[in-house]
């Protein structure tokens, strides 16, 4: 394509038409692939070519404008190039303005970071366009801080909006920040609140990073908002967006240098001339010291064989442990520490003694606070609780489940109860010698103190393996049995674990409202019920559990928290896997059909990706069931 630099009155509207038509037919790549580099070169220093280019895009008819503008924004190698090519198109043309400021930022979210940089950089490069930049920032912030948007939009869109906000912030100058400081502050506060409320760690981190960045921009002196979270690639990438590279002659690569952000860092001091600082490096003095040996020989050492390491002995009896743990003698902290460490093994070695005091011990452990700083205190306490629960399941399960719904417990304690129930159920339902290895797969629910989507993924693997194993049931009869069979101890107690938990979920207490604010615990409860259901396979109570669970899921199926919905879908999976097929079809057909239609709905319309995937898996499981039924009946 070669333009003749002709006379002054060249009309290029024909070319604009062609360009528009081609772009709208989807051939942006081909035509702009050639056009954009050529124009880039031509417009680099030549003013006339710049104006020609501007005329070119301005003359594209409105109905094709979107395709053209989109193409240009995506293909331009840098914000400055885009500025040269498009000029003030966004200001002059309403359609272009809509595409750039609304459509690409708020309605779409599939563009790369480089495209965002181009777009926002382009807006910032001209004073006429900067007003648009500010407007864009306001709208982005509005979306970011809206809790309903947060609930109903996918995580990817949230990430996209966060990136856009950070890039905008990086382009703003001081006076502009001054003028909208108040709005920035208000949006930040609201946005942070609803982001932190979310149950998904990814969204929380996004909220934290953006809030920190906003705070950094509006408070240049004075204390800056700082959250504690683990840095990962995503947060690092986001933070790097706040700094703009000065040179515009290549696609702005994201600089990894966030050192400039740390305004308050303590600089290493230049040591004074007189002082020197040494780290411990032993200097071996020379031979002269050996000459002084003699006088030391006068002193004859005493026998020091008794000088051994001090070991604090832990108590050997369970009742002694109880005494130490409840004792008010604050001096004996060494003994307290030793007791906490030794408790689990003592409980397991003395089951009879433990059964006598099991509920009391469970009560003490539930309320046990860290008196001294022991490493792994939380894990030690949890293991002790699991040991007590597995040694004497029925009374302790009764106690724990009743405490779950009692007043005046912290959320942490309630979630601990759920963790302990799950771990104990696992232990009871698995054969003893497989205990160690099988635990590792689903161990994540216990160590994870805050529920992430990881816990459902962790045991999802096991469920998937189960599905696989189920479909290959035909040639498995082995001549040698590797594992001796073991009575399933979970059988007799599954009901005691499960039903009390499901009973009171809709009755709010003054300090605890599962259906209201405490949806985090509700999510955890739902996941726990799913795991308990899964572990109850081959127990007598499984059908009754299945029915109750189905009713429970039906009641909650429209919950707004995506973590809860994921849990509900996991419940359905466990149900389909654990309850024997005949029972499902005998007792639960109508409910299952209703559930199937609900699952179809979720699969198509749910904003959360994990929910959609789980729904699909459930539908596949149901299909399998149907096929099996047909295979049997035919």
């Amino acid at each position, binding site marked *: 394509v070669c333009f003749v630099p002709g006379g002054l009155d060249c009309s290029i509207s024909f070319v604009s038409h062609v360009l528009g038509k081609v772009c709208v037919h989807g051939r942006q790549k081909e035509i702009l692939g050639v056009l954009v580099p050529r124009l880039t070169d031509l417009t680099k220093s030549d003013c006339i070519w710049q104006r020609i280019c501007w005329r070119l895009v301005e003359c594209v008819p409105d109905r094709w404008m979107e395709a053209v503008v989109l193409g240009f924004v995506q293909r331009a190698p840098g914000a400055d190039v885009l500025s040269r090519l498009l000029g003030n198109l966004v200001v002059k043309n309403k359609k272009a303005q809509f595409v750039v400021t609304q459509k690409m930022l708020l309605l779409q979210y599939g563009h790369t970071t480089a495209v965002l940089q181009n777009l926002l950089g382009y807006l910032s490069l001209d004073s006429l366009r900067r007003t648009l930049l500010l407007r864009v920032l306001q709208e982005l912030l509005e979306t970011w801080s809206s809790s309903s948007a947060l609930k109903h939009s996918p995580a990817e869109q949230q990430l996209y909006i966060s990136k856009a906000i950070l890039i905008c912030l990086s382009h703003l100058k001081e006076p502009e920040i001054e003028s909208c400081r108040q709005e920035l502050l208000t949006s930040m506060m609201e946005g942070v609140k609803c982001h932190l409320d979310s149950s998904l760690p990814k969204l929380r981190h996004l909220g934290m990073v953006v809030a920190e960045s906003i705070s950094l921009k509006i408070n240049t002196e004075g204390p800056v908002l700082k959250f504690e979270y683990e840095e990962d690639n995503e947060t690092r990438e986001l933070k790097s967006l706040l700094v703009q590279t000065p040179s515009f002659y290549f696609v702005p690569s994201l600089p990894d240098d966030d050192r400039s952000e740390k305004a308050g860092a303590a600089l290493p001091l230049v040591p004074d001339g007189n002082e020197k600082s040494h780290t411990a490096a032993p200097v071996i003095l020379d031979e002269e010291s050996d000459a002084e040996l003699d006088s030391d020989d006068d002193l004859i050492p005493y026998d020091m064989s008794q000088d051994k390491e*001090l070991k604090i002995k832990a108590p050997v009896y369970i009742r002694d442990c109880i005494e130490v743990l409840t004792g008010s003698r604050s001096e004996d902290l060494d003994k307290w520490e030793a007791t906490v460490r030794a408790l689990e093994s003592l409980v397991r070695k003395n089951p009879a003694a433990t059964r006598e005091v099991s509920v009391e011990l469970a009560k003490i452990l539930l309320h046990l606070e860290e008196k001294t700083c022991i490493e792994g205190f939380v894990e030690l306490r949890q293991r002790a609780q699991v040991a007590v629960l597995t040694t004497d399941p029925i009374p302790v399960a009764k106690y724990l489940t009743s405490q779950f719904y009692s007043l005046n417990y912290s959320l942490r304690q309630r979630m601990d109860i759920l963790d302990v129930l799950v771990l104990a159920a696992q232990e009871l339902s698995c054969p003893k010698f497989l205990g160690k290895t099988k635990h590792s797969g689903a161990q994540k629910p216990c160590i994870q103190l805050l529920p992430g989507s990881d816990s459902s993924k962790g045991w999802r693997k096991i469920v998937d393996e189960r599905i696989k194993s189920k479909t290959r049931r035909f040639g498995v009869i082995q001549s040698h049995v590797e594992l001796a069979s073991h009575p399933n101890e979970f059988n007799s107690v599954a009901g005691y674990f499960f039903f009390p938990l499901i009973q009171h979920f809709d009755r709010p207490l003054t300090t605890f409202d599962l259906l209201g604010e405490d949806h985090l615990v509700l999510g955890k409860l739902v996941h726990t019920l799913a795991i308990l259901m899964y572990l109850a396979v081959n127990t007598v109570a499984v059908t009754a559990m299945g029915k109750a669970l189905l009713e429970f899921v039906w009641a909650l199926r429209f919950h707004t928290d995506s973590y809860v919905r994921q849990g509900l879908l996991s419940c359905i999976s466990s149900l389909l896997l654990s309850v024997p097929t005949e029972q499902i079809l005998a007792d639960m057909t109508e409910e299952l059909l209703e559930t199937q239609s609900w699952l179809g709905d979720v699969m198509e319309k749910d904003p959360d990706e994990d929910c959609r995937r789980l729904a699909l898996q459930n539908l596949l499981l149901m299909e399998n069931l149907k096929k099996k039924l047909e295979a049997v009946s035919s």
Partner: protein
Amino acid sequence: MAPPPPDPQFVLRGTSAAVHTLHFSCGGPEPDIPLLFSGSENGLVHVWNLKTHRVDTALDGHGRKSVYCVETMGGKDRLLSQGRDQRICLWDLAEGRTSVTDSVFTEHVGFCRCSLLKVAQGRWLMAMAARSLEEVQILELPSKMSVCTLKPEMGAKLGMPMCLKLWQLSCGSQPVLLAGYEDGSVVLWNVSMGKVLSKLVCHQEPVMSLDFDSEKAKGISGSSEKVLSIWSLNEQQNLQVYKTHELVNAGISDITIRPDKKILATAGWDHRIRIFGWKKLKPLAVLDYHTGTAHCVSFSDHSTPQERLLAAGSKDQRISVWSIYAHT
């Protein structure tokens, strides 16, 4: 066959509270009774008569707050005590009096013991931790005039001063201060100029106690970890680590070098007192008498060597007094 460790010569009971600090005053001529001063957690300073092994007087000047440092100022008639009520009290004990003549309000809420140095007849320099977190103040006593304030530079992050020792090479020379800090470093300060001469990081944990031998220019420090660190001062006034010694159990509360510089004693958190030879830090004895953390050790200043004693105070409210290596 090494002989078994000796038993204490006698044990002083009666403080009814954990003993945090001890100081002997036995150097007086014959009719004077040898005394041991002890400071306890109940705020009392007990004056023990070492002939009768009983308390002669109990001094109550710190409002029931723990006393963690006692020192005599030139004889047993003038006593200095430091307590957790943020005060340093100066007592007049001559002729049976028990009155507080003066006090200094330090505003220090930590546990750093002050250090005294006699610079001239009737004049002392006292180093004490001051109100501000990292500072050490030097006062002149009895005038209570501030000589200088030793402030580490910005960003040095030494933490609180944990233990202090003022000393001078010989009478009339410049006084210097050795200070052990919370970050495990020992710093040598020039008092008159208020500047740091040398800094040595010798521990990973806070320095709990230190002592220094000015003749050999060698010092020792103990901390809450298992390592004792011995360092030396070379001609350029620089501190260097000379040696380290690993202990069986972690935690040292107090270290003292005997005035004749032959042996030193450490009080440990494992209830044991350890005796080492000072020359090469040869372990000599482990005295295992106490049933609680040993908080302090002190050597007596008897003029006749055979009468020399070692006293140790502990959390178990007892003071054990030992006669060990008295004949060398």
